[in-house]
């Protein structure tokens, strides 16, 4: 079975020039300062100055992780669409269709296989822009498949989690993704490969109550909201105000629930170091001393078209000569 589909290589961006957006500036959600979008994008979607970590789309995330910004996209299984024939105010199939048009993705999780400082890793990214990164059958299968691939490749698995929780429109079948993904985590554990979770803003609900809290090492990005129950539900239950910083990454670290809070700029190096140490690979300097693999040639034709996600809607095309 060939799970690896197209190789994703760096693009010469101006070949596929996006429309110039009207809005070149964005407002920092934390401080309210106006910043030039391009500066934010070039800064891994961290607002310069305030260090606010904005959400990062799956493509940007994988680019920021893998060597030479190059990886194989992992083919993900098709699942039964709309098992409940669900509709609330709208039909679920219509919501899915909209999310696909909006994000260009098939569902909330994308899985890549590539090199991280020379060593193979499988990484899964949960895209909050796709129906709140919700965990449905497609996302569950994607995680299971990613973990199976990591077992097959004898490589670590890195999970970038971001989710509002279960996909309610899939009812009990979304709940079943909690044990299903846990089976995947157990298979990796038995293969003695590291499972590293990066909790990004926000990660809540059934996602935290399954694979996102079962990492061998738990990392969170600064300021990320992480929790089981929603703040509103808790306030309604206990009828009191929540403490300052409640359910934020730093608060979880103080309460012993995660190992570290890592700035996005330091994330790649941290992940690479952890993978090397836990897999007993040689230190970075030794790897660096070995003859390096040549970087793959950038292809001129983009191998795929990623329509702008809401956060990147304001993105101008990179003005490359």
């Amino acid at each position: 079975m060939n799970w690896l589909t197209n190789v994703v290589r760096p693009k010469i961006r101006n070949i596929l020039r996006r429309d110039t957006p009207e809005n070149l500036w964005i407002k920092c959600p934390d401080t309210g300062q106006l910043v030039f979008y391009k500066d934010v994008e070039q800064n891994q979607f961290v607002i310069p100055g305030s260090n606010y970590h904005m959400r990062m789309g799956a493509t940007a995330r994988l680019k920021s992780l893998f060597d030479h910004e190059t990886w194989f996209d992992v083919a993900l299984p098709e699942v039964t669409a709309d098992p409940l024939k669900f509709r609330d105010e709208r039909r679920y199939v219509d919501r899915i269709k909209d999310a696909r048009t909006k994000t260009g993705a098939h569902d909330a999780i994308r899985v890549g296989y590539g090199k991280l400082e020379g060593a193979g890793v499988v990484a899964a990214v949960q895209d909050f822009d796709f129906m709140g990164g919700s965990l449905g059958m497609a996302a569950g299968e994607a995680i299971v498949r990613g973990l199976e691939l990591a077992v097959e490749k004898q490589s670590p698995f890195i999970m970038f989690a971001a989710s509002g929780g279960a996909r309610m429109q899939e009812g009990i079948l979304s709940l079943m993704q909690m044990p299903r993904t846990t089976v995947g985590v157990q298979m990796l554990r038995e293969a003695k490969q590291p499972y590293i979770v990066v909790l990004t803003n926000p990660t809540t609900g059934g996602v935290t109550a399954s694979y996102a809290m079962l990492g061998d090492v738990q990392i969170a990005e600064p300021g990320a909201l992480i929790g089981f129950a929603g703040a509103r539900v808790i306030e309604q239950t206990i009828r009191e105000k929540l403490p300052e910083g409640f359910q934020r990454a730093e608060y979880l670290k103080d309460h012993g629930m995660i190992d570290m809070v890592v700035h996005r700029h330091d994330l790649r190096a941290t992940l690479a170091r952890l993978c090397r140490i836990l897999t007993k690979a040689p230190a970075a300097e030794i790897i660096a001393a070995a003859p390096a693999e040549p970087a793959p040639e950038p292809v001129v034709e983009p191998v795929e078209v990623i329509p702008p996600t809401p956060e990147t809607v304001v993105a101008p095309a990179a003005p490359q000569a």
Partner: protein
Amino acid sequence: MSDHIRSYLDFEKPVAELDSKIDELRALAASGSDIGEEISRIEEKAGQALHDLYATLTPWQKTQVARHPQRPHCLDYIEGLIAEFTPLAGDRKFGEDEALVGGFGRFRGESICVIGQEKGASTESRLKHNFGMARPEGYRKAVRLMELADRFGIPVLSLVDTAGAYPGIGAEERGQAEAIARSTDACLSLGVPNVAVIIGEGGSGGAIAIATASRVLMLEHAIYSVISPEAASSILWRDAAKAQEAATSMKITAQDLARFGVIDSILKEPVGGAHRDPSAMIAATGEAVAQAIGELSGLDADAIRKQRRQKFLDIGRKLA
């Protein structure tokens, strides 16, 4: 249960009227009137009405039956089925959580580990058991007991009845999500058979934490859902009044779940629901649990783990 004042759900009004008529006639009969025939005629009618009503319960009506205060709860099943029950307390990390009860005892002569959420039957006991909503300590206790059971080769029975895990500041600070995840993980690691019975409400993550079992049984009028109909209504419909519609759309009944392959079998309830004849329900549950454990008894630890994992991996892969 017969000591309790019988309480009727809204939709049971026709039955309630017939029952009160029977009571009146009985009082008359006691004072000497010869109306035995009339009484048995109305009794038959009331029985038929109850039967018809419960044969066609809507998902929202089932939700009410599943939450009926007189429905047999976890401790009723333990009392009815488990001899020498010895409750064990505490997670050895922070505290004791009585929302999730657990311990060891004998089921039909053989050792068994039992864990389950207890909702409580009186105001006092409801408070004591936090209405069956467990905190992280409850799930960590469950993990501790499952690991003990595994070490001693003792099967595990989970009795699932919770609106969900408790949402509170302390619960979050002490890692409610992690506790649930580890409990599900522990269920999947067991080299002994585990059987889960959804006896009332299977509320989301708080339920799956102990319901990830080799065999999952569900009572005929129990519900099992990723989110309560009320919460789904206010989130998806943005209207708290749409709970009935949500209950239907979310497909939360045993009949729906059997069709999806999420549960293995449905346990028939007495006419009028488990609360009308708790001892019959508890006995029937005992039969089904014994059968489920029996089916798995010949397997070694690896085969048991493999079967459970494969069963969950298969869920959703063969939907029509």
